[in-house]
């Protein structure tokens, strides 16, 4: 009797489905949490107390409640008062609610970390509020927020495994099903852990690589690459004639 006895080829389709579900939870929840987190951060930086206060209460509340409690509340709790969310909706809602609180803290400190002179210089150039935010404050805040945000993305991916408690058909849930069919907990969960690692490690390394490129000032968008190429050509050509 060798250590690996589970007929993995039989379970490959199930694992594949689980992996896709895990990715779907991660992408949808992170997108939602990033948007809600940005809105919360902007509210907390508002001059108006009526906007600041609810955002601050939200953040403090959900930062200090365990994710598992939020999952149970949205899935079982709400169902008990007649609001029945599907597993996917309840799972995404829980992750969004929880991670938006953390992301809002990261975004808030990043936006506040952009030097005040930047805003002033943009205003002095006639940029309106929206242009100033979109073209001057936001790109700089994004650079400051990137390391923390990347950590949160990987953390969120791993936290989708808590959705096993509501049988969300993601990777961990599939692992549990395979275990109950084979009674090989050690082998199954080692494989599941390895799959999580294989997802998270390249993701975090890729994000670090992205961070380094952005910090080195390497243009990411094709439009900007084209603009800088044109600029280089113009600068060189005119420089030669002087």
């Amino acid at each position, binding site marked *: 009797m060798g250590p690996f006895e589970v007929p993995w080829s039989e379970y490959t389709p199930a694992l594949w489905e689980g992996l896709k579900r895990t990715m779907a939870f991660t992408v949808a929840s992170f997108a939602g949490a990033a948007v809600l987190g940005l809105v919360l951060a902007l509210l907390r930086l508002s001059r108006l107390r009526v906007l600041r206060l609810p955002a601050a209460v939200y953040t403090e509340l959900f930062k200090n409640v365990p994710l598992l409690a939020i999952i149970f509340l949205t899935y079982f709790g709400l169902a008990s008062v007649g609001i029945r969310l599907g597993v996917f909706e309840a799972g995404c809602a829980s992750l969004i609610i929880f991670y938006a609180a953390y992301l809002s803290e990261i975004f808030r400190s990043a936006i506040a970390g952009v030097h005040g002179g930047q805003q002033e210089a943009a205003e*002095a*150039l006639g940029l309106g509020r929206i242009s100033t935010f979109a073209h001057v404050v936001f790109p*700089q805040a994004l650079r400051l927020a990137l390391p923390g945000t990347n950590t949160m993305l990987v953390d969120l991916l791993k936290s989708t495994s808590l959705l096993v408690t509501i049988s969300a058909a993601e990777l961990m849930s599939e692992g549990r099903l395979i275990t109950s069919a084979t009674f090989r907990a050690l082998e199954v969960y080692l494989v599941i852990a390895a799959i999580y690692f294989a997802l998270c490690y390249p993701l975090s390394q890729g994000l670090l690589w992205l961070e380094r490129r952005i910090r080195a000032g390497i243009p990411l968008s094709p439009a900007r690459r084209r603009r800088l190429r044109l600029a280089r050509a113009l600068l060189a050509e005119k420089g030669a004639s002087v």
Partner: protein
Amino acid sequence: MTGQAPDPGDRAVEQLATSPVRAEVVVLIEHLSKSFDGRLVLDDVHLKVGRSKIVSIIGQSGGGKTTLLRCVNLLERPDHGLLTVAGETIFSGDRLVCHDLARLRQTVGMVFQRFNLFPHLTAVENVMLAQRRAGVPEQVALERSVQLLRRVGLAHRGVAYPEQLSGGEQQRVAIARALALKPAVLLFDEPTSSLDPESTGEVLRVMRELAEDGMTMILVTHELPFARDVSDWVVFIDGGRIVEEGEPADVLVRPSQLRTKAFLASYAASH
């Protein structure tokens, strides 16, 4: 003192008058006052800057020089007084008359003590940004930005990021950026105060060239020899009031006021 917005019949004339070429008086300030937390920092100040004139504002730190400069493009809102820029009334009595802040700020360029370049953009993109936001097509904005960088002697540094540039280079990019929207007047807020002597020389050279090209400038500075060389008019501000003003040869060489003499003496002692 009326200084109200023009009545609708005058609008067409008013539009023309706002072009920098038409207005003979580019900046007019009368009875301007401003206080922060109950402390009066500008007290009944007046200033008139004609086209192609260079006015230097000197005085001790905290005397109100920078606040006065920042009122011209409404980075600070005055409490009271009259302000017109390029023939258009911006502020009158205690009311903001200007309805198009963006256009005012395109008419008034500003250069800051700490450069305030956008660190996530290269030099040429720093110069381009405001033009693109004002609707100038990409190619036109790019060509103009390259031209401006050449004018400040930085064509070879155009695709460098601000952190890769020396202080003097950054300030010259900032000057190019302020010129990008063809302003009627340039404001300089102690442009050389955070620079070493060599960089100061570079920046002053560029400013001198602008002066020779007929740029209208208001300059808050501690570089008194430079102010004496390039200015048409020097204003000495202390405690929020204009203590003395006149030709540079008078104010800076033969001041009549005791406080001006004291300021110049302390300047001479420290340089």
